């Protein structure tokens, strides 16, 4: 009724207001009363007469429409444990409506299925799930009433099970259905629209769904250490003066990468580092700290490999002498 009054007032506004075209993104608000009265003037019997027609009033029905989209930029990299999928629901109808949400973790083609823990709404509107702040919906999970054109960010909280393998994919399907009802476009729910209008299912069927995707990224690092010995006599005995060359191969496997991979190795008791023998992938590193990836002090070597992609092996070598 409020809206109807608004329009009636608008008609009595001066010219400038009438010329402006109202912006209706989702169409005229449900419940709006469209009134139409014609006026005729004519000459008869020596005077001009004016006559008004009856006023025809029609009430705009409520169109039930909704869209749902995943806000994730693509498959979310994940590992066993909790994960958050982000969606946006928009009431594309022309009246206030709430929507029931259902998250289905079992989607054909999944390599594994997650467990859906809950559905939450972005209470503080920052686009990020904030535990304890963003409201977790209780079943049947239903959004607050959204005005026409209003949107809301939805979080689906899932748990990725243990035992998943690297690169495994899993989809979660979120469905939204208008509380008033869904069905083929044109399905009418008499009297159930805003302001006593009928509710009519729009082209979306008054329901929508969207897929959020997860991909398991498990990256592992294996360190393989080996040693070769050369004694002062050209043999391979461990005697004072023998030089031991240690090789540490860092093998990174998996579809992702590891960050801040730092390799440190203390010298074995009874040995002394031979200065200037530290190498990375065959290239010499200085013993000083801060000038390159590696440094060697009195007790250990240290090489900072930084970010290493899966499928890469980096090799560090250094020599010690048996005391």
């Amino acid at each position, binding site marked *: 009724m409020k809206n109807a009054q608004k*329009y009636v007032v608008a008609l009595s506004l001066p010219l400038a207001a*009438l010329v402006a075209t109202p912006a209706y993104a989702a169409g005229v608000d449900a419940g709006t009363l469209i009134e139409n*009265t014609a006026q005729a003037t004519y000459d008869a019997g020596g005077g001009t*007469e004016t*006559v008004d027609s009856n006023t025809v009033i029609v009430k705009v029905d409520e169109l039930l429409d909704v869209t749902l989209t995943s806000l994730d930029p693509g498959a979310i990299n994940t590992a066993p444990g909790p994960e958050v999928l982000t969606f946006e629901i928009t009431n594309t109808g022309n009246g206030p409506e709430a929507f029931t949400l259902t998250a289905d973790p079992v989607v054909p083609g999944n390599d594994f299925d997650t467990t859906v823990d809950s559905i939450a709404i972005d209470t503080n509107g920052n686009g990020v799930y904030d535990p304890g702040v963003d409201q977790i919906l209780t079943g049947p999970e239903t959004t607050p009433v959204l005005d026409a054109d209003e949107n809301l960010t939805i979080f689906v909280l899932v748990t990725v099970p243990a035992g998943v393998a690297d690169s495994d994919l899993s989809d979660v399907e979120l469905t939204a259905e208008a509380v008033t009802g869904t069905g083929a476009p044109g399905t009418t729910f008499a009297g159930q629209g805003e302001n006593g209008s009928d509710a009519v299912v729009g082209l979306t069927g008054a329901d929508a769904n969207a897929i959020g995707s997860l991909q398991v990224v498990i990256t592992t690092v294996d360190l393989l250490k080996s040693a070769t010995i050369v004694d002062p006599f050209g043999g391979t005995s461990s005697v004072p003066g023998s030089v031991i060359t240690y090789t540490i191969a860092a093998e990174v496997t998996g579809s992702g990468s590891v960050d801040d991979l730092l390799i440190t190795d203390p010298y074995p008791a009874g040995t002394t580092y031979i200065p200037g023998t530290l190498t990375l992938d065959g290239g010499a590193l200085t013993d000083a700290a801060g000038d390159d990836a590696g440094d060697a002090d009195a007790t250990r070597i240290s090489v900072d490999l930084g970010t290493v992609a899966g499928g890469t092996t980096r090799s560090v070598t250094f020599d010690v002498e048996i005391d």
Partner: protein
Amino acid sequence: MRKFFKILAISALFSMPLASPVAAQDGQVKITNSVKIEQVSQSDSGEPQVKLVDPDVFIPGGRLIFVTDYQNDGAEPATNFVVTNPLHSAVRLADDADPDLTVSADGGTVWGKLSELTVSSEDGSTVAASHDDVTHIRWTLAEVAPGASGRIKYPVIIR
């Protein structure tokens, strides 16, 4: 009884300021508005037939036909018969409306065919008026003879 009420209504009109000093004679010409939709069916010979029927759904994007029926019940001809119909802001003139309709895009000040009208855009420049801009529609008939009746109509789209 009916007549009595009509007289009352007319005397009320008289007492209103700005009322036309020339009294409207009692209902010589009547106009009746209705809202319809077009329903296309096939005739027996297979020709498409367009019927106007009462709509039961009013949704944004929906097409309605605004109809005005007129009838001269008097004994004298009504000349210079002009029917003016303001468009509610929630509807716009349909794109396939008769291009020869006389319309106004400024609340009823300037009249003409839509193709002849202009409106001010938001930046102040003058642009050609579109169906969206139409605020009023007007028909002029030179004469409605005694006993004559007719129907005028135009299509609108619910915004």
